[in-house]
């Protein structure tokens, strides 16, 4: 029996994660003790404050990289730093959307239409648990991107997932759909993480180690049983591909995106993608790199299918949230090509793309949350007709974001596409380049369809109207527009910064 030595933790580096967790705990306490009236405001303040602090703490650690911060189980390096920063920034602008908390169920536990719920709504009760939940999820994401051993990775995955499952069910209107979304998300998520765990087990069995570096070493050693490795890689990939909603592990996302409260969808769509791809980058670049010739063909195939499938199905969507869901699937395909590229420019490109896409997504969903009628949000595209007449600025903003998704020059989306495809081609992957370009063409088709709807169709008088955005939502939209534009016109500083900073400690 060896003597137990207490682990050495570098708190400065862990600070961002810890801060967010602490904020979450405080949030729970507020839920427990603070009077109902003050909760909403104090929770919002607390969350924003927490995130800002976390961001500050993160910035303080810049330039100091180490894999020893928590006994090799997390690695703080350039890539991790950038990804965490991306997550925090996106989180900050996304969490402001939660402020319009009349979007959330008064009594989530109450059966829809029950007296209990009616009373709750009558009392104008607003549940504010969503804030601490979000903070927990964020903490999980932050950890997910820097986790460098399998335990941490698995735990982080669950920490970020579980709160999301709940948040998905919190919609105030269309409760049934919302709950269904929660159920689906939960069951499938759990199912996927079971695969993940199984994969983890086999990776451990293969390499006799649970750290990425250990696995990498075992692969380069190449003595161990390849079958284990192969099972491990594929099943772990299943778990990750599920999170990034790549075909054929995508089927949850349209339903969940549609069912969840739009604010949650925004956060989920943007931040989760960053975290999941962050983890994916790390594990593939660090742990599996040596084995690239084995997994690249299959992942390429998945990437191609994902791009095309997402773009094609999006064409026939009638619901704006579902359409955005499918477009996010297509984008997952593009992002995958960055992962597959497995080169420096691939890393840079993916990180830039993640950030740009995440920000734009938040903005888009924020705008979606503005289109309302008496019974809540209007997501049926046909009822968006003539928006350009009714409220041109909103329509222009939304079109701009759509153009960014479509990758039109002078938007961040274009720079992202350009860099990620060139990375893919640089790694000799012509198929990705061509398919990517073609599916972008298909994608353009449905983005433009929405533009046509908004500008060239005459409005239908059915009470659909644009609610005056609250100051918070307004900030969110403006910020995401600004970033999308700036990254489109003057991407140079960001690009340079990423390419100088992004690297993996191995």
């Amino acid at each position, binding site marked *: 029996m060896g003597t137990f030595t207490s682990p050495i933790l570098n708190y400065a580096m862990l600070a961002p994660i810890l801060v967010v967790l602490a904020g979450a705990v405080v949030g729970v306490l507020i839920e427990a003790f603070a009077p109902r009236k003050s909760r909403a405001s104090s929770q919002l303040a607390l969350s924003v404050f927490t995130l800002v602090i976390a961001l500050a703490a993160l910035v303080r650690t810049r330039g100091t990289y180490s894999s020893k911060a928590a006994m090799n189980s997390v690695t703080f390096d350039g890539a991790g730093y950038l990804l965490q920063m991306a997550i925090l920034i996106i989180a900050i602008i996304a969490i402001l959307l939660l402020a319009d908390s009349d979007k959330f169920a008064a009594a989530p*536990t109450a059966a829809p239409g029950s007296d209990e719920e009616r009373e709750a709504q009558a009392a104008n009760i607003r549940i504010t648990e969503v804030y601490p939940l979000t903070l927990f999820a964020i903490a999980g994401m932050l950890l997910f991107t820097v986790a460098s051993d399998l335990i941490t990775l698995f735990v982080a995955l669950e920490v970020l997932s579980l709160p999301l499952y709940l948040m998905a069910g919190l919609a105030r209107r269309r409760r049934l759909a919302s709950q*269904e979304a929660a159920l689906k998300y939960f069951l499938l998520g759990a199912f996927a993480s079971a695969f993940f765990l199984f994969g983890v087990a086999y990776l451990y069995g293969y390499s006799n180690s649970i750290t990425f570096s250990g696995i990498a070493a075992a692969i380069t050693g190449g003595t161990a049983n390849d079958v284990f490795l192969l099972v491990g890689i594929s099943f772990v990939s299943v778990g990750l591909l599920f999170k990034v909603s790549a075909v054929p592990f995508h089927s949850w996302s349209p339903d969940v995106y549609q*069912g969840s409260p739009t604010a949650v969808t925004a956060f989920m769509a943007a931040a989760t993608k960053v975290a999941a791809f962050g983890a994916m980058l790390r594990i593939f670049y660090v742990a599996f790199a040596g084995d690239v010739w084995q997994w690249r063909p299959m992942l390429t195939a998945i990437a191609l299918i994902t791009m095309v499938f997402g773009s094609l199905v999006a064409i026939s969507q009638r619901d704006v949230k579902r359409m955005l869901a499918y477009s996010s699937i297509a984008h997952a395909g593009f992002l995958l090509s960055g992962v597959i590229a497995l080169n420096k420019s691939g890393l840079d490109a993916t990180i830039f793309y993640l950030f740009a896409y995440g920000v734009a997504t938040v903005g888009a969903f924020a705008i979606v949350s503005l289109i309302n009628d008496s019974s809540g949000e209007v997501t049926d595209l046909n009822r968006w007709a003539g928006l350009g007449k009714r409220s041109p600025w909103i329509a222009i903003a939304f079109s701009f974001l759509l153009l960014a998704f479509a990758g039109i020059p002078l938007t961040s989306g274009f720079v992202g596409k350009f860099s990620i495809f060139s990375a893919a081609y640089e790694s000799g992957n012509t198929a990705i380049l061509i398919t990517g370009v073609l599916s972008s063409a298909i994608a353009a088709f449905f983005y433009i369809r929405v533009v046509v709807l908004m500008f060239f169709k005459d409005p239908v008088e059915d009470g659909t109207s644009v609610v005056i955005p609250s100051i918070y939502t307004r900030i969110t939209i403006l910020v995401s527009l600004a970033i999308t534009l700036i990254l489109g016109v003057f991407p140079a500083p960001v690009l340079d910064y990423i390419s100088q900073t992004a690297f993996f400690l191995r």
Partner: protein
Amino acid sequence: MDPYNYLYLAALLFTIGAVGVVVRRNAIVVFMCIELMLNAGNLTLVTFSRINGNLNGQVVAFFTMVVAACEVVVGLAIIVAIYRSRRSASIDDASLLKR
């Protein structure tokens, strides 16, 4: 006895669980199947820990149990809520969202 048999067992359990998820309707049962898959994972871990002769695997298994517990909490909450609103625990009833 050859520890590899445990791997086969675990694989078998995992398969049973996976198939169960696909074929069963009752949310609770489906959930149990998932738990079964998780435990198959645990078993595998422990076995490998035995084969490789270090403890990491078992440590992971412990973490997994905790995580599984959390999942139960969240999962049951959701299932109960949906049961209350739909008066049924059949996951096929919940199919408003599609296409």
